[in-house]
């Protein structure tokens, strides 16, 4: 992997602000809002709060996982829905759960290359509006009827092809790996067993996530980041809907494992299906200052890695975090904040365990010493996806926004992010306070 610190670009991309919708349970309050509508809410809130002149915007870059087939370029649809100037171009990227972070690093790269000065980047997902695909067999059988004039013989032919009927019924969508057929929870369950991650430790992490998120909400810490969404006449959603302030390790311990009979993963220590969106305003630094903004943070480095999905699907951040740190010229000890996406408590603990492992450093990173211990005090300081929820494409943008603010709150210089993603991907970025 190339690591270069000598040729830092002369243009620097900075994070000016971030805004997101509340994150709510799938098939709940946001049922009527698809990814585009949710993205529109987040982006609109961002523009309103920053009072940015719309003519300054060069582009929208958006991340999404469950893309609407009829309009997969969410970014452009959001720009059009918000009536942004027609010149504001849009592109949509998808990198599973790292899609939101991908949109932000794409925006930063474009700005640093001089392609743009001001970009709205972010991501959104609506699990509630996942389209249920028709089996290819049905689609192919119906082709003569759908295109051209079908004769009665064609119609009979279509009927004949539809047997047996169970092959043409729509399948229940599931979050399964295409190559292994394994549901993500099953992969995480195996990771828990293989890395000896105890149920108690998972539940403790989950409880901490809820308590910290609840405290952040109660203190008003998230008010700068979360914007209410109007879902109907006199109906507004103000706050994240999944956080449970009253949960406890004892309560979580009562839940049954869901992915394996004698497993350790439960609904309580896994992230829930969630609807939501998050947006981040990224600018070239001098442009930001010229427009009168005070940048929050710069993106000092980023790294994306791949691991074998059949092995340890969600271990990627254990590789991407050291790589991003190396590219930033930093050690884990230099970083005051560590934010790891909580797909499953077992996955976060597997990652932190490997970061602390000398064997992992030696055998997987070719280093003499372990990357380092991540102490609880600086890890996911306001909770994570287990408590807040995880609208796939939005999570990266949520993490960037929270960490950019937190660098100032805690007077820290650097934060590192780690996100695991389907397909065996790991994504990381290092944020630097400006």
């Amino acid at each position, binding site marked *: 992997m190339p690591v270069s610190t000598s040729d830092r670009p002369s243009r620097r991309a900075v994070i000016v602000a971030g805004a997101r919708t509340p994150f709510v349970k799938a098939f709940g309050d946001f049922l009527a809002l698809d990814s585009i509508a949710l993205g529109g809410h987040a982006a609109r809130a961002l523009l309103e709060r920053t009072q940015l002149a719309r003519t300054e915007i060069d582009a929208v870059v958006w991340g999404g996982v469950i893309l609407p087939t009829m309009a997969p370029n969410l970014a452009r649809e959001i720009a059009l829905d918000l009536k942004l100037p027609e010149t504001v171009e849009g592109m949509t990227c998808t990198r599973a759960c790292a899609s939101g972070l991908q949109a932000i690093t794409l925006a930063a790269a474009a700005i640093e290359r001089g392609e743009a000065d001001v970009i709205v980047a972010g991501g959104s997902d609506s699990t509630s509006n996942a389209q249920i695909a028709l089996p290819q067999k049905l689609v192919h059988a119906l082709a003569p009827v759908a295109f051209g004039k079908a004769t009665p013989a064609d119609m009979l032919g279509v009927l004949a092809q539809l047997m047996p009927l169970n092959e043409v019924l729509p399948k229940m969508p599931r979050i399964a790996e295409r190559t292994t057929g394994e549901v993500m929870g099953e992969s995480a369950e195996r990771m828990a067993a*293989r*890395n*000896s991650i105890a149920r108690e430790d998972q539940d403790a992490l989950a409880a901490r996530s809820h308590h910290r998120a609840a405290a952040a909400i109660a203190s008003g810490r998230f008010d700068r980041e979360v914007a209410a969404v109007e879902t109907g006449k006199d109906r507004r959603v103000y706050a994240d809907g999944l956080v449970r302030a009253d949960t406890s390790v004892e309560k979580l311990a009562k839940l049954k494992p869901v992915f394996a009979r004698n497993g350790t993963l439960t609904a309580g220590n896994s992230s829930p299906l969630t609807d939501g969106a998050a947006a981040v305003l990224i600018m070239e630094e001098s442009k930001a200052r010229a427009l009168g903004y005070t940048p929050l943070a710069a993106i000092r480095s980023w790294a994306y890695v791949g691991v*074998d999905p*059949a092995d*340890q699907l969600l271990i990627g951040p254990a590789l991407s975090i050291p790589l991003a740190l190396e590219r930033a010229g930093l050690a884990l000890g230099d970083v005051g904040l560590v934010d790891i996406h909580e797909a499953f408590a077992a996955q976060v603990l597997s990652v932190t365990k490997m970061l602390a*492992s000398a*064997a992992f450093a*030696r055998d997987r990173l070719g280093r003499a010493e372990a990357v380092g211990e991540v102490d609880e005090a600086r890890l996911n300081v306001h909770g994570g996806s287990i408590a807040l929820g995880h609208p796939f494409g939005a999570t990266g943008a949520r993490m960037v926004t929270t960490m950019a603010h937190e660098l100032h709150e805690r007077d820290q210089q650097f934060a590192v992010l780690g996100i695991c993603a389907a397909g065996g991907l790991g994504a990381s970025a290092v944020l630097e306070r400006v």
Partner: protein
Amino acid sequence: MADFLLELSKNPQARKLVQTLGLPLPMPEPLQRPRGPRGDRPLADRAVTLRTAESTLTPHVADALARAGASVTAVGTAAALDGLGDVGEAFGRRPIRTDLEALGGSKARVLVFDASDFAAIDDLDRLWEFFNPLLGGLARCGRIVVVGRPADQAPTAAAAAARNALDGFVRSLAKEVGKRGAGANLLIVEDGAEDRVAGPLRFLASERAAYVSGQPLRVSARAKAAPAAPETRPLDGKTAVVTGAARGIGRATARALADEGAHVICLDRPEDASAVAQLARELRGSPLAVDLLAPDAIDAITAAARERGGIDVIVHNAGITRDKTLLRMKREAWDLCLDVNLTAVAAITAALSDAKLLRANARVVCLSSIGGIAGNMGQTNYAAAKAGIIGLVRSLAPQLAKRGVTINAVAPGFIETRMTAAMPAGVREVARRLNNLGQGGLPVDVAEAVAFLALPSSDGVTGQVLRVCGGALVGA
């Protein structure tokens, strides 16, 4: 001719019926063979029970298994288990440490017994203590690997006895488990070759060694170590030559090498030019139509090798038989058999070596035969040539070792090819059963063994004869 009994035994009802009726018919277990080329973790999630030794070798064995993706359960003394250290942790594959009692008769796909700490005759008891309770739980087509040290380098007579005992033990164990399609083999690891055990272990513990059973294989540090290569497509960017590639074992070998990423020069006689051209096209290699007995054969091969900037693998597979009792054998039959099977192999290898066309860490694999080891009625010419190959390999191995070049022989037993299909039906039927697995091998089984010896990770194996014979009842 298809193997009727093997086909019959694939049918569960028929199999049950034969067994219930107690018919005197052997029901060979259909072998599990690999699907597709090598991957990073050939033993992914397979239950492997490992007997650890108090030696420097055990961590290497455990590490190789962990990297191959195995779920290892380790048994042994507290000191031996401590010796594992943090092996496997980086891959989420730390061996589960337990003892034989706690293990009970648990099931396993692979049993690995590290006997590298055997120093006294009493140590042999550990074999009974490990295998007696665990053998019943070995999966069908399971694999057993015993790892030991060479008897000829033992410090004491007692140690030499214990070390050599492993040979007889493994050969007998192979016969016992063969009925279930399982195989047992012995890896003899010399001092200083501990870090070369991974490649051979991966091979013997996987279904790529399906038809290799009852064999000892020695691992040494004689040849210069090869640079590390990926486990997936390990032959990427390398050039291989396979002689006699038009059909049978040669064809399967060319395919296996191409599957692992090699550019294969498919060589066969001009009469088979179209078959070879077709194969070369399919494998994205290149054809070379040459008669090995033609005066310009060596020039043609060296020219082809030079064009590719030298070669990394050569498989001397081309061979012929001209069977007759010596009393009735014509001079031509004697000459032809020796010329093709031995003289050409020696000449081509020497020419490539002299012209510096064998790249550093190249692999030379020569096809020998069980006939060359055990002898065969009517094959004085063939057996002489094939035994000559073994002499050639043993003599050249130290000479080539400095540049990291290895040379080995593969000795197939009864393999279902055009050659064996031409045998009289009765003889063929008997010949098929005369091994531990009760069935003939397939060309792909030999190809797998050749491909294994052609890998960069086989740098610990040189000057060896690897039999692919299902543990044939004849031969030493």
